[in-house]
């Protein structure tokens, strides 16, 4: 029973990683860049929801909508100002810019909302599911996070395979030059990718802070890095891979802490990542792309 409850906790943590990883993997898959500021957009989203709910007394759906709009605007602005001018630059330059953007967002949040941590209000009030006569508790937040994950995963898969815009995204992902020759507007396609990724970040912010209700300017950074790891683990660029990688990472982290050592929890996570990458360099569900020379 203890094992089951650890497993549930692992899935709960993993589903949070998964939802963040979805945003990472989507932007990477299409724009071929690692948006390290993704974790910090999540933090901004969580702060907006916090403010909307605590200070302006908005109901949850309205707060979430406001946060999604703000995050989308923020994502597009960041893309326009910081990443677009570097479209032709090396991927390393873009990577460093993304890290810089991450610090900029953290420190701006520090100026606006201050340093003191805030405890996120319990907004998803669903109670919890009690199994085996109360021995196994599954929190409502966990169930909702998993459901939202699956919905987003299905939604994104349908979007990229069925819609015109989605198809354009896949084209841009496959061969940017050829896509442009076919009349696809590469810039606006990438902007829309960022818009969707950032809107997802607002949802991830809500779910992250509902499960782990601590909100401060660095809230997004560690989960962001873990989620990036999850995305690589599952095969970066693959949408189901992000989900699988996230959940597995969470489960490994919790079980490692519970049965091996709390001190080695993070070390175990990254050791598993290294092993997976040695055996399968493209990640669990990643596609091997043959480079033609």
């Amino acid at each position, binding site marked *: 029973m203890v094992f089951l409850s650890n497993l549930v*906790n692992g899935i709960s943590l993993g589903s949070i990683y998964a939802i963040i990883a979805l945003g990472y993997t989507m932007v990477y898959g299409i724009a071929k860049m690692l948006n390290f500021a993704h974790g910090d957009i999540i933090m901004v989203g969580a702060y907006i929801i916090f403010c909307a709910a605590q200070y302006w007394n908005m109901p949850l759906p309205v707060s979430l909508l406001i946060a999604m709009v703000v995050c989308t605007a923020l994502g597009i602005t960041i893309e326009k100002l910081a990443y677009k001018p570097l479209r032709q630059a090396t991927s390393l330059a873009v990577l460093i810019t993304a890290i810089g953007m991450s610090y900029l967002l953290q420190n701006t949040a520090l100026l606006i909302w201050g*340093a*003191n*941590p*805030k405890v996120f209000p319990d907004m998803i009030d669903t109670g919890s599911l009690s199994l085996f006569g109360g021995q196994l508790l599954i929190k409502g937040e966990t169930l909702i996070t998993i459901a939202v994950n699956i919905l987003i995963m299905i939604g994104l898969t349908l979007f990229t395979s069925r819609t015109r815009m989605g198809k354009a995204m896949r084209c841009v992902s496959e061969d940017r030059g050829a896509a442009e020759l076919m009349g696809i507007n590469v810039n606006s396609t990438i902007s829309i990718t960022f818009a969707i990724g950032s809107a997802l970040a607002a949802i991830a912010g809500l779910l992250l802070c509902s499960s782990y*209700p*601590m909100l401060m300017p660095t809230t997004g950074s560690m989960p962001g890095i873990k989620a990036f790891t999850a995305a690589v683990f599952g095969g970066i660029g693959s949408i189901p891979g992000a989900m699988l990688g996230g959940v597995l990472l969470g489960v490994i982290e919790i079980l490692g802490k519970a049965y091996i050592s*709390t001190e080695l929890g993070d070390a175990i996570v990254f050791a598993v990542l290294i092993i997976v990458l040695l055996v399968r360099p493209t990640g669990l569900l990643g596609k091997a792309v043959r480079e033609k020379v």
Partner: protein
Amino acid sequence: MKKVFAVMLALCLLLACVSAMAEDVTLKIAHIGPQTGGAAVYGLATYRGAQIAADEINAQDNGFTIELLNEDDTHDAEKAVNAYNSVMEKGAQMIVGTTTTAPCIAVGAKAYEERVFMLTPSASSTDVTADKDNVYQVCFTDPNQGSASAAVINEKKLGTKIAVIYNNADAYSTGIYQTFVQKAGELGMEIVSTTTFTDETTDFSVQVADAQKNGADLVFLPIYYTPASQILIAANSIGYAPTFFGVDGMDGILTMEGFDAKLAEGVMLLTPFVADATDEATVSFVTKYQELYNEVPNQFAADGYDCVYALVAAAEKAGVQTGEAAEDICDRMIEAMQQITVDGLTGTMTWSANGEVDKVPTAMIIRDGAYVGLDN
């Protein structure tokens, strides 16, 4: 003629005043502590406490004028050293700080080389004072906190099966944990679960579940209040309600924005200062603090306040003069520090040659959202 005489008299008086002020020794004291970042609560509190003490001393006619410099170190060792360099350039003679342990170890090493006297309000690790004759503490050391906690738990029979959750990436937390375990061993107390976390940990379910699984009825939390709040929330969500026992880092949990203070009900902690004490000094300090900053001061504010008074007492004993360089007064301050007795907000304090303070800790419990003495 009378008029001229009166004007002359007034001038004389004025001159006398000016000369009396000129006789005042000006002490340049620098406060360094986190005022942004995760530990901002502590640095802001020590600074505000120190500022109130400085204002009081400046308003009194006791021969000293305090010029209080202030720098933010964001609880980061590297930034703390930069802050130290910056205040030394501005001519600081002695330092109140740094507020938190890890930066204090870094700054202490530099100050030891450059012979600058430091009195930290709240950096409680023994590493802060170890092998450095120029660093003194106003707070209890971690060994003191750890062993005093074990002694209190044992003496008052607060728990029989004890769990410990501590931050193994933090010198403060690890220091208290080690002496707690040692003292608990000596007293024959049973520790059934020991788990750790780091600054980056978001999920505390494993730690709490381990304590519950092993049947702990008291969980000792030698940690800061931010992770402590997450542990209280995690325990509450699985319906686990042991006695929680914290140390001075727990102070601050009641003022956390958005935190449901009901969860902290019954939490115990060791702290040398209580804002609702009724002695004159505490009442006056709390009133001033509330007027200026609109919140109830915590223990750190009181530590900062006591720091400034202790420095002035030592400076008086050491005969420090206006504008003397920090390295010239350091050795005299060290000598004076061991001779003075300061009757502060956090108790009557004397210091030993290793820089540790001697005062009496008291155990508090949170009832109805406020600290009250455990014995009440």
